[in-house]
């Protein structure tokens, strides 16, 4: 059975801190790994990673995938209160529709 484990489950930091969120996975026939940010109900897409070692970057957020060790990290630098959210990691396998989500990391950024 496919499995995605995120850590930590929750994290409280102060504005300006840098955080690293972890996602490890076990999935048959890996195809891609996606990161989403969920503030209220609808998750919004952050990154999709398919190849090892290639960093994806968007502003203060960046992410990288290690397909050998089966994990990904999401980094957020110079955190702001608006970064407070649940960050979800999802892994797709080559069975086109099947995706497995982790339970998320709840990030709280205090002013």
């Amino acid at each position: 059975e496919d499995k995605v484990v995120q850590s930590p489950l929750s994290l409280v930091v102060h504005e300006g801190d840098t955080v690293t969120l972890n996602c490890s996975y076990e999935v048959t026939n890996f195809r891609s790994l996606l990161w989403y940010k969920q503030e209220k109900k609808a998750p919004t897409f952050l990154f999709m990673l398919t190849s090892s070692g290639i960093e994806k970057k968007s502003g203060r957020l960046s992410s990288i995938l290690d397909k050998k060790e089966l994990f990904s990290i999401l980094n957020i630098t110079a955190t702001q209160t608006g970064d407070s959210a649940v960050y979800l990691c999802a892994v797709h396998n080559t069975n086109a529709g099947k995706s497995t989500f982790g339970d998320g990391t709840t990030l709280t950024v205090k002013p």
Partner: protein
Amino acid sequence: GAGVSQSPSNKVTEKGKDVELRCDPISGHTALYWYRQRLGQGLEFLIYFQGNSAPDKSGLPSDRFSAERTGESVSTLTIQRTQQEDSAVYLCASSFLGANTEAFFGQGTRLTVV
């Protein structure tokens, strides 16, 4: 439409009643997904549509759950004889092709079974 639209946004129903949840995907998106999210948990995959067919129904938790999609657009998720454990947020997402592309999520339907 501009985004994925789900209705109703909230639904309270009595145990044993049937409910129908609706999802309008982004126009032109061929792939449509349903997920369930219980409080404090991640998303649980329910079903995936490619066009009008559902190649993967493996996530449907029981035979009380069914879904259909017509005209490669609107999808409905039906839960029969609702139970309290069905209480959750039901999220719909759509994407252009399938699993290797970004999915866009609706705001979800919060279902409460009392």
